[in-house]
């Protein structure tokens, strides 16, 4: 009997631990981060898959089913994925723990004035595209780590070790990306959407204008005409665009002005081979460095 009890004591926790912790995230980048922290103890899925616009997601019943089975949901936060709350509500999951991955991130472009729709899709808590800065992965990871530990406190040490190891790996890669983009510090680019303040701050790139006249507002002929004149001035060295946008207008602008178009994925999974965060930043850095003339 004692032997049986001892065996049960030995096997019991490992059987419990074998049950994976289910995490759903709004964006695949956070799913990748959860996998890095949770290792084999998590099963992760993202609501957004592939080359999509995070700002607008249609609420499918299959999303509710996914979240209904989950232990943890990771939101982008800062009012970017407002749709996530409807999915969480629709999941009917009363035990779900919700994590805001932006919680510890130092926010940029926080409006100091009353925001309304005349400014376009401006977010009152600041620009929410923080995941495009590899330097914020520690802060994002800490928020996710805290959520994972709430669900499975017994694995805190493993999650902590995994997070530290992952951040070290990203930091090492970051030095390489910074070195490759260092020659272009201060270089002026325009971007399609206001996705790049965190990235630009990290790598010293200057985003001086946008294809969208206001955030979320499609390019207008008048605005494109003004941009054409600006690009012909020679100061702007690249048009940086998120791959989920239609590239016909940026292509035309690039052909007209000779300024190279750099179309890059902004989410993990948005391009072939971009299967994790390291691959995403590698793809962005390589495309930008090549277009700006470095080719490193």
């Amino acid at each position, binding site marked *: 009997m004692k032997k049986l009890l001892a065996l049960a004591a030995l096997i019991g926790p490992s059987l419990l631990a074998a049950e994976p912790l289910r995490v759903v995230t709004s964006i695949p980048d956070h799913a990748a981060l959860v996998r890095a922290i949770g290792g084999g103890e998590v099963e992760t899925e993202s609501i957004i*898959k*592939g*080359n*999509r*616009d995070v700002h*607008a*997601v*249609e*609420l*499918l*019943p*299959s999303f*509710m*089913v*996914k979240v*209904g*089975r989950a232990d943890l949901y990771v939101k982008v936060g800062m009012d970017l994925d*407002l*749709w996530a709350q*409807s999915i*969480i*509500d*629709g*999941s*009917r*999951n*009363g035990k*779900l723990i919700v994590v805001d991955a932006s919680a510890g991130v130092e926010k940029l472009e926080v409006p100091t004035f009353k925001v309304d*729709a005349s400014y*376009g*899709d401006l977010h009152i808590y600041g620009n929410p595209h923080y995941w495009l800065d590899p330097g914020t992965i520690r802060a994002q990871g800490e928020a996710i780590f805290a959520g994972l530990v709430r669900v499975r406190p017994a694995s805190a040490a493993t999650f902590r070790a995994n997070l530290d190891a992952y951040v070290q790996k990203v930091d090492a890669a970051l030095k390489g990306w910074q070195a490759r983009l260092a020659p272009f510090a201060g270089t002026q680019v325009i971007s399609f959407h206001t996705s790049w303040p965190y990235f630009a701050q990290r790598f010293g790139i200057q985003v001086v204008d946008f294809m969208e006249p206001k955030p*979320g*507002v*499609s390019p207008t002929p008048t605005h494109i005409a003004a941009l054409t004149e600006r690009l012909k001035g020679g100061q702007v060295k690249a048009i940086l665009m998120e791959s*989920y*946008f*239609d590239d016909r207008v940026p292509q035309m602008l690039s052909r007209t002005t000779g300024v190279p178009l750099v179309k890059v994925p902004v989410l993990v999974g948005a391009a072939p081979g971009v299967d994790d965060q390291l691959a995403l930043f590698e793809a962005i850095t390589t495309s930008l460095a090549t277009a700006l003339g470095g080719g490193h």
Partner: protein
Amino acid sequence: MRPRPLLTAFAVVLATGWVSAQGINPDISVIGDVRAFVTGDPNDSKKDELQLDLHGAELALGGYLNPFARADVYIGYHDDEIELEEAYATILRGLPGRLQLKAGKYRVDFGKLNLLHPHAYSFLDTPLVHQVLLGEEGLIDIGVNLNTQIPIGSAALTLSGNVLKGDFSTSQHHADEDEHAHAAAGLWARQPFVRSLHDDIEIEEEAEPGLGYSERLGLYIPTGDYAGFEVGLNALQGTFDRGTGRQVRLLGADLKYRWAPDKYHSLTVQGEWIRSERDLWTPDEPLERTTASGFYAFIDYRFAQRWNTGVVAERAEGAYDPSVTTERAGVFGGFQLMEETTMLRLLLRRTDGDALEKPVDEAILQLVFSLGPHKAHWF
């Protein structure tokens, strides 16, 4: 001037209270529906002339009551009247069996489309079959709803049941009254066929409704990351006059397919069929049961970020006289001015039916504007 510490302290307290109150204020949004139209209806005194109409405006308030529940209120302005369209509370999470509970006045989940407010329709107006068999603005009633979702692999089976006060059963009666009252002013000129589909007002005026019950079973099956279809079955039973024991029974089936591969393209194919059985009463005669049915179907294709187009076809039999049928077909297009907060829609449609001497053609241009927070789009 002497300092007034008490007054200052009071002002500070008020200001602090105001600031903290802002955090718990509900979301507020306002939607307006402005129309310009031309109708060929011979009963319209302004036939073939350009007419303008503030078709409606809606004030929506909504917010969380606690982490697991929220409340929503919709106040509408239509035809110079202000009406409480919906007011309900929903317990979203935390109930056993993955249940959600809703109570109040709300749009009943009889079919997929009835849950939407008409300003969200690409084809502008409440489908004929809804107007005739569910009510002028669709099926709205005071009640309690309990629903759950059962995962079947990646598919979702939704089961829903409502206990309803029964106001829905007389909504056509009220619609009829309003319609006749406003007909002279031309307010119903855009929908001449509705008049032809109602009769026997005297019978309805005495109705005292009893409780009603409705059920829905919906199965959503994804066919891709951003594509899927839902089939639904709906039923409703109610007493629309307790005095005479007259009953109403509705049966419906609906289908929706949607494919949205990127932010620039989407395709929606949707339709619904409804069959109604109603008891008719005339003095000294046994109850007589009438059966009527109808359907709508539409295809809506978004071919650019801000542009969509489609076609709609409808048919409805009179609720009390199924021999009087009306058919309607139209082609529509929509354009978002900058963002989806400002939408222009154009509908060209033809209505024909037994009660019309000849088909009526209409052209309607609609401007829909919405103030307030962006709302997520549901499948």
